[in-house]
């Protein structure tokens, strides 16, 4: 069951903030976040394993709301290097890991 990501695309100016959401129709065991820059491989950002868990990676952080079966990725004071496509991946109980469709983020100077 592929998770849903929103928005599909977002354009920011340097220094602005963004939130990317990932939701599943089934109970989540874990949520993973990856970033893929154009022409490159996806790169792991973080995994959230527990409901209520929050993690940070430089100015990128994420939260996991197990009850709502969703996760949000927060990009604070965005930099040009944040541009790329962000994928969430979800592991539902008893099912295989699956990536969402991606959110394309463009940071402009």
């Amino acid at each position, binding site marked *: 069951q592929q998770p849903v990501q929103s928005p599909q695309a977002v354009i920011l100016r340097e220094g602005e903030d963004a939130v990317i959401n990932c939701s599943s129709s089934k109970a989540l065991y874990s949520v*993973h976040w990856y970033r893929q820059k154009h022409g490159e*491989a*996806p790169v792991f950002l973080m995994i959230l394993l527990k409901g209520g868990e929050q993690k940070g990676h430089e100015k990128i952080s994420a939260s996991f709301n197990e009850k709502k079966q969703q996760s949000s990725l927060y990009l604070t004071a965005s930099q040009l290097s944040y541009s790329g496509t962000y994928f969430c991946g979800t592991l539902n109980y008893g099912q295989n*890991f699956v*990536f969402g469709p991606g959110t394309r983020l463009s940071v402009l100077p």
Partner: protein
Amino acid sequence: DTAVSQTPKYLVTQMGNDKSIKCEQNLGHDTMYWYKQDSKKFLKIMFSYNNKELIINETVPNRFSPKSPDKAHLNLHINSLELGDSAVYFCASSQDQGTGGTEAFFGQGTRLTVV
């Protein structure tokens, strides 16, 4: 040292041909994967192997056959290539049981173009 390496990086071939993509990881991981990324950027798992054993085999035409000679290698052979097979194929590895519960490391991708 490249953690997950796949070759070739680009592959252009005619319809009907048979081709292989090789993948090797030096991370000591037990699990390796093949993903297909189409023109819309959807990343779809095709196969996963855990210690040379097939764990995940998604709905993929049987023209695609993975082969894992040892846990550090997972090759992908494709028979009778079709136009719709054109995509970027990523190999990945992780330290889990094959269902994707831990961080995955991706190779640089193989861009396959079928003409």
